[in-house]
């Protein structure tokens, strides 16, 4: 069976080996963003340093939402991916319907829906609503990645494991998934990065993330250009760091490749 390729979504470019070197896009962007930010803060502390000092608790919230949403979205994605290839028609239908519904509704609408619309029935705290909405949305996307990753593993692997006496679940966890991770990680890494960027949408729920902190600062001081410059640079730096981490992780997972 030939390897299937997996669609890459709108994350950020994850640096590949071939891009390495002093003038890789990653290095240029990272160094550039860092230098610009430092220069602004050093040479123009008012307002840039003030802005930067105003952001930390917002950055923390952004990280919190990102990390929790990634954890739950991966778990949900795994379940969904397994559900989508399940032989049980009920489980299969549930997983497929979930993917269809979630993929058909914009994240922003999902955020509003879970927080404000359902807020009349279940009063979720803003962070919880934000994390649930992000996880639900990205769980569906990741479910598709997991499914494709699992299906990309040679059928012979399943047969070899089954012939030894592993049941389907054991085969999945001991044989298929450890291999599928390699195929899954690059697109999942892209989802991580897209998710991080999309957490900026939670500011709509009045969650005090980095973007909202910036907006509060700007609307009080009218330093729109300065504030959004800092916000953009900080997002860029975080995103680049995350994509670097993903590419290092990818390297690690390639340990058993042909020499």
């Amino acid at each position, binding site marked *: 069976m030939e390897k299937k390729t997996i669609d890459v979504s709108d994350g950020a470019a994850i640096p590949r080996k071939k891009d390495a070197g002093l003038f890789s896009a990653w290095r240029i962007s990272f160094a550039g963003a860092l230098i610009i930010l430092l220069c602004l803060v050093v040479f123009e502390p008012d307002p840039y340093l003030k802005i930067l000092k105003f952001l930390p608790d917002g950055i923390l919230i952004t990280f919190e939402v990102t990390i929790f949403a990634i954890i739950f979205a991966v778990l949900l994605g795994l379940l969904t991916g397994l559900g989508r290839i399940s032989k049980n028609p009920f489980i299969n239908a549930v997983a497929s319907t979930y993917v269809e519904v979630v993929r058909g509704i914009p994240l922003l609408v999902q955020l509003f829906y879970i927080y404000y619309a359902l*807020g009349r029935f279940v009063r979720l705290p803003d962070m919880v609503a934000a994390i649930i909405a992000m996880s639900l949305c990205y769980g569906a996307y990741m479910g598709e990645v997991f499914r494709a990753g699992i299906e990309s593993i040679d059928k012979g692997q399943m047969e070899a494991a089954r012939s030894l006496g592993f049941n389907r679940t054991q085969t999945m966890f001991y044989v298929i998934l450890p291999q599928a991770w390699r195929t899954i990680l690059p697109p999942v890494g892209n989802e991580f990065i897209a998710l991080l960027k999309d957490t900026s949408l939670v500011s709509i729920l*009045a969650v005090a993330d980095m973007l*909202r902190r910036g907006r509060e600062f*700007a*609307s009080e001081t*009218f330093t729109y250009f300065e504030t959004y410059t800092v916000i953009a640079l900080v997002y860029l730096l975080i995103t680049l760091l995350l994509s670097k981490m993903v590419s290092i992780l990818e390297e690690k997972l390639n340990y058993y490749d042909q020499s």
Partner: protein
Amino acid sequence: MMKRCVWVVLAAILLATPAWARTLVVAQDATWPPMEFMNEQKEIIGFDTDYVRAVAKEAGFDVVFKNVAWDGIFAGLDAGQYDAVCSSVTITDERKKAMDFGIPYFKVRQALVVSKDSTVKTLEELKGKTVGGQIGTTGYFAIKKTEGITAKSYDEIGLAMEDLFSGRIDGVVCDDPTAAQYALQKADYAARLKIAAVLDTGDEYYGIAVKKGNKEVLDLINKGIEAVQAKGIDKELRAKWIGQ
């Protein structure tokens, strides 16, 4: 033949509109009843909207309204996307540095809205609790200034009221006409919310904001405001939109 037609049409247009008439674009964030909000026909209505129309009539200019989200409304003014902002803008020292204001036209105070069963009488009593306001408003600044309260900023005051309604926050601070609108007028909110206090942050005055240094528009607007105030039109509008 064709050419003559064009000339005739042009002449007609020139004759129909007084030579000095110009059109000002005025931005409003239509989420602030009863001052400016959307009706079911998707038109912006409210005290401010009528007020600007009266000013325009007196000063002899045409006006077009533009609905703009609050937290970008002054950036747009600065970028020249519209000529003025008339959207319950409190005149503050901070804002005066960034833009010019016309003659003050409306007096408000900040009001604290809480749930009906709350016994709170001042903002200070909400220490340790979360209080919401619209981002970039004097109401929100008042919350942030109060020690020990978690300030939560919303894009629209209606979303803050909704969170107060569903019990996720403990109070909302906004201009008193708007507070009254939610706590007294809107049926479902009024059943659950009340105005607990008018804050002692003092009187505030609304002003029409223009881009810093835009004297031409400012003079035009001030001329209109003076006429409106002299004729008592503002009192009529107050009776129409606010009551008492």
